[in-house]
Every structure is written in structure tokens, then in C-alpha cells.
């Protein structure tokens, strides 16, 4: 029984491998570009899957397009720009820095800055002038005792 399962698993996994490898590439570098691009491009139909991972029709079509553009000699940056021109910034897993998105980086930094200011301020030993006077008097008394 277990053996049957293993055979079935091998069959299924080799099928998915076959689906991935159905594209032919001119060079190993091009294959690597393809793998990198399909990993960083997001499927517009799915909520959080890259196009390498998704089985949606649009992901199939985008993989085919990426392959086609690579064969035409386009660079990775050009292909990302090509997809962004059609599906917007959503399609790329690295958001651009704009006035709207800069807060993704700034808010944590502002939070850290504010928090450290508060922590540093609180740590200051609070010696009131009143207390300083009392300490001085205590010192005097101690000195008198000793002598």
C-alpha cells in the first residue's frame, strides 16, 4: 500500500516538474532569469501567490509572456516594467517608494526614535534641588559624627 502511495507521489511530482520545464531556454542564464522573474511577479488574480506558484490562467499567460519576452532579448527590468504597465505596481513584490508608501519605512523608524527618546528621558536620575539640599545636610551630619 505504502509503495503504491510513493509511486503515486512520484508520478504527481514529476507531472508538476514537467509543467515547469515545458519552456526551453537559449542559455542557463536565461533560465535563471525566468525563475527569478516568475518568483518576484505577483499573480493579479490571486491574493498572495507569485506567478511561478499559481495555476490561474492569468499566471500561465504571464509565464508564457515572460518566456516570450526573454527570448526576444528583453532584460529583467524591462519585463518587470512591461508587467507593471499592464497590471500596476501590485504585480511586483517590491513596492516603489512614493509619497504614499514611504510611510512603510518611516513609521517604524519614527516609532523607534520616539520610543528611545522617551526611554532616555525617563532614565535620567531625578534629583530635585530640595533633595540636593537634604543630601548636603546629611553629609554635614555624617562629617560631624566622624569628628
Amino acid at each position, binding site marked *: 500500500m505504502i509503495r503504491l502511495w510513493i509511486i503515486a507521489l512520484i508520478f504527481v511530482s514529476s507531472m508538476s516538474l514537467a509543467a515547469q520545464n515545458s519552456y526551453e531556454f537559449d542559455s542557463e542564464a536565461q533560465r535563471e532569469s525566468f525563475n527569478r522573474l516568475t518568483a518576484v511577479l505577483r499573480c*493579479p488574480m490571486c*491574493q498572495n501567490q507569485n506567478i511561478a506558484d499559481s495555476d490561474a490562467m*492569468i499566471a500561465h499567460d504571464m509565464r508564457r509572456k515572460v518566456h516570450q519576452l526573454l527570448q526576444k532579448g528583453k532584460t529583467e527590468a524591462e519585463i518587470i516594467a512591461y508587467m507593471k504597465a*499592464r497590471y500596476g505596481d501590485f504585480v511586483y513584490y517590491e513596492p516603489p517608494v512614493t509619497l504614499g508608501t514611504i510611510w512603510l519605512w518611516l513609521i517604524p523608524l519614527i516609532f523607534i526614535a520616539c520610543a528611545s527618546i522617551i526611554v532616555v528621558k525617563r532614565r535620567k536620575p531625578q534629583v530635585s534641588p530640595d533633595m540636593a539640599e537634604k543630601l548636603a545636610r546629611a553629609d554635614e551630619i555624617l562629617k560631624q559624627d566622624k569628628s
Partner: protein
Amino acid sequence: MKKSWLVIVPVILFILVAAFLYSGLSSDPRQLDSQITGRPFPEFSLPDLMEPDKNYTQAALEGEVTIINVWGVWCVTCAVEMPYLTHLKETQGVRFLGLYFDQDLDPDNGTKTLNRVQQEVTDLLSRYGNPYAFNIFDVYRDTSLDLGVTGAPEHFVIDREGVVRMHHVGDINERVWENKIGPMYHRLSGQNAQSSEGAGR
């Protein structure tokens, strides 16, 4: 003085965060900003679905306000909206063009013959009504990709100069037509009629 400041700042922060999160409740994560709106319809050269010898380019869209309907027989919502689209065509003379693409037809190793696709389309249109002036067959789904289509049905309102003026994801029903697409369609056809009249004088 210092104490009131300590109270006001957290309260303001809380209100800002609450407002931000509240607006997120009603936003649709699937809704993407259309990139094509305001730009000319992408160049294409595609055959007629029913008469593959006939070829269309983007020039076929110019001269009249057109609504492009991206659809396929495999799409249930497309069949549901078909009677209403037909009604719009018959009562208001709206020009619908179909941009047809087939889901089962893998361009690299096709499993369906064109004849079968045509048969399925004819069957469906005879059952639900045919709103289309004609259907453009997006064989490789390239034009859909250029338009930023993610599924079906999707609609594009094209003005007389062939510029995309609206991208609507989802079906057209009475509510959508009355509130969103209809006003845009009528404004475009009215505007263009006026400007061409003005040019004629």
C-alpha cells in the same frame, strides 16, 4: 500643560489608526488600479471569431463609442449578463464588441478545434441573446494581457478616438449601467456628437 499633551497625542494617534483601519474594512483587496484607462487601446491584429479570414485592428474601434466585453463561454457570469446587454443594444443602440478568449485553448498545445469553439459560442448566443456587433478572437490572449484583464467578464468603454475611458471588472447589470457605465457612455456619445456637429458648421 504637559499632562494634557500626554493625553491628546495618544488620542489623536488612536483616531488616525482607527480611521485608517476602518477604511480598510470596506476596501476590496482584489480591486486593482486600471493602468489602461486614459490610454489608447493597445495595438492588435486579430481574426473574427466566426469568420477567421477577416482581420481586425484597433481601427475597428474608432468612429463610434464602443464597449468591449471580454468574455468566454466557460464564464457563467458572462452568460448571466448576456440578456441585459442584448436589451441595452436593442433599446439604446449600444455598440458592444466581444473580445473572446478561450480558457481551455492552450495556445502552445491546443486541445480544442476552432469549430468547436464557434459551435459553443453560437449555442450560447442563441440561448441568451447576441449583443455583439462582432466578436474578436483573442487567440493567444495577448490583447487581454495588454489590457490588464485578469478574468471575465470585464468591460472597456472606448471613445470615438479609440481611447479607453473606463475599465469595469465584473458584469453589467441594471444597477451598474445606471450608476457607472451608462452615464459615461451617454456623456461620450453626446459629447462626440456635439463636437462633430460643431465641426460641420
